[in-house]
């Protein structure tokens, strides 16, 4: 029983790491632009698809290796970075001074575009991600097992989040990003190149989403052009859980959501799995209207 519980926890954390990676992109973009980037789930899908093609063209399908995984991640990140940069320039930047909901609609438009283009380019049928690692259990006690794939997923996620934390807290770009999040106008007055920072934020988020796409290919190899819709939405929920705009909040929210989802489908019923994210969301928002780590902003009268 306890082993089972622990097993679910391990599975949940690995799954939650993926949510967290996607959620970070939502939260960072929200931080600098106050925009819910609904196209982010599709960036993650493109990440998975790119990973699929890259891995095959690198000839990794039959020859799993850690190096192969790294190469695949790199290829996928590069493509998604470029994609995000294009999306930002074309669909969001022209609307910087437009009513707030306008970019939201273009975001939905880009999301639909990528889903449908994806079906044309990649085909609507699911594909099977090549096993980049030879799956074996590296840790086994009784019924509890941890596979090298799970470790790789979690390890990569943690590594990336640590890197992100370093970028945000320690680099010039990170400082600029925090400044723009705090007050874009003031940042602009102080000479922060706001447009470049926003572009960089999109790229950074896309890189993390690309990684999530490849990692998901390792654990759930079945991928298709609509795969980004639900995880994208749930990752956004995770970001809101943590308090949108708050980077550690997104990490915690993602992990929390992954674990709880795994528990619900393990112990209750998998039909409720998709509902639990939203139930949790509602419960937390009703209790704390700005998410777990969000700060309340009172309006000065």
């Amino acid at each position, binding site marked *: 029983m306890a082993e089972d519980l622990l097993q679910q926890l391990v599975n949940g954390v690995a799954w939650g790491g993926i949510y967290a990676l996607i959620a970070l992109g939502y939260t960072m973009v*929200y931080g600098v632009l*106050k925009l*819910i980037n*609904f196209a982010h789930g599709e960036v993650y899908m493109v990440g998975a698809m790119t990973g699929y093609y890259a891995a095959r063209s690198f000839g990794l399908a039959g020859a799993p290796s850690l190096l192969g995984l790294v190469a695949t991640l790199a290829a996928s990140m590069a493509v998604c970075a470029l994609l995000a940069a294009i999306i930002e320039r074309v*669909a969001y930047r*022209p*609307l910087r001074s*437009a*009513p707030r*909901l*306008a970019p*939201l*609609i*273009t975001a*939905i*438009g*880009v999301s*639909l*575009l990528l889903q*449908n*283009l994806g*079906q*044309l380019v990649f085909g609507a049928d699911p594909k099977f991600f090549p096993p980049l690692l030879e799956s074996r259990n590296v840790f086994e006690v009784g019924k509890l097992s941890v596979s090298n794939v799970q470790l790789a997923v979690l390890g990569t996620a943690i590594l990336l989040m640590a890197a992100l934390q370093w970028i945000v807290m320690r680099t010039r770009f990170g400082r600029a990003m925090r400044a723009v999040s705090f007050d874009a106008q003031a940042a602009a007055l102080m000479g922060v190149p706001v447009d470049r920072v926003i572009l960089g934020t999109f790229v950074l988020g896309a890189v993390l989403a690309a990684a999530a796409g490849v990692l998901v290919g390792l654990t759930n190899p079945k991928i298709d052009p609509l795969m980004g*819709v639900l995880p994208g*939405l749930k990752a*956004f*929920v995770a970001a*809101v859980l943590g308090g*949108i705009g708050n980077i550690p909040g997104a990490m915690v929210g993602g992990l929390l959501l992954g674990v709880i989802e795994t528990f619900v489908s393990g112990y209750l019923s998998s*039909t*409720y799995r*998709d*509902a639990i*994210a*939203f*139930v949790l*969301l*509602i419960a937390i*928002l*009703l209790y704390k*209207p*700005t*998410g777990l780590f969000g700060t309340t902003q009172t*309006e000065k*009268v």
Partner: protein
Amino acid sequence: MSSKRVAAFALVAIVLLALDAWLPSWLNPYYATIVTRIGIAVVAAVSLQLVNGFTGQFSIGHAGFMAVGAYTSAAFSVYVGAGWLESLLGLLPAPLARSLFYPLVLASGGLAAAVAGFVVGIPALRLRGDYLAIATLGFAEVIRIAILNVDAVGGARGFSIHAAEHPAADLRFEGFGAVYAVVVVTIVVVARLVYSSGGLSFRAVREDEVAATSIGIATTRIKVEAFVVASFFAGVAGALFAHSEGYVHTNSFAFLRSFEIVVFVVLGGLGSITGAVLAAAVLTAAPELLRGLGEWRMVLYSLLLIGTMLLRPQGLLGNREIDLGWLRKRFG
């Protein structure tokens, strides 16, 4: 009621009845379906406009209330209404019996959705901006998944609106008379709500909540009212949808449907009833008209959406109305 008003109602009723009788005989059924769907989209869009465009709240879960209306009305038809309809059919000529019965069905959907809107609105409307948005989305998904787990309405198989014990009662309503009657009622009610002095409070809440409370407006109450009215019409739209298709499935009410309605509202222009009508009509017809493009049609559709928004960030009509004077004079 003034005689002018009676005349207006009679005119609308006659036009709708005539449409109902004549359109099917010369319009190909495929186009007929599109016309019906446009009507349903308009009802959904105009009602959401009340919340998003006029009251300044941001709901992206409208499809959830459509689902409540669709399923409640369907269950009502199948488990209760079929018997009533059968008895009515024994007493009255079929068209009359059916047109007496159908409003009950629609009302059941609308009322159920209004109740759901009230229950969801009270807690959710304490939230602001994007938090409200995501909460409404969450509620809509929870509603949808909850329905998916109710066996009496078919669960994951969907729910066919057909009562085996009452074979004589055809529970499908394909005519557009009813759809467009609801369209007219929705537009009139929302227009009157937002363009009269009493209804100015909706826009006051949108413009500045602090100032609104300072002149005695109970802002939460106003928001809940907007939400409940909008949910009611969403429920009616859901009922119309269910009964024109003869079958409901929760997939029709997933968040993509909610997004679609938000797109109608924003693309039409926040705070414009006619804008919402226009956008709902164009965007519902577009994918069908683009059908010739085969698999490229949805790609083009999304490009159209992005392009329009880039060219007109304030929406097609901004917050203006087409022919406002006419609306005001007739129904104001």
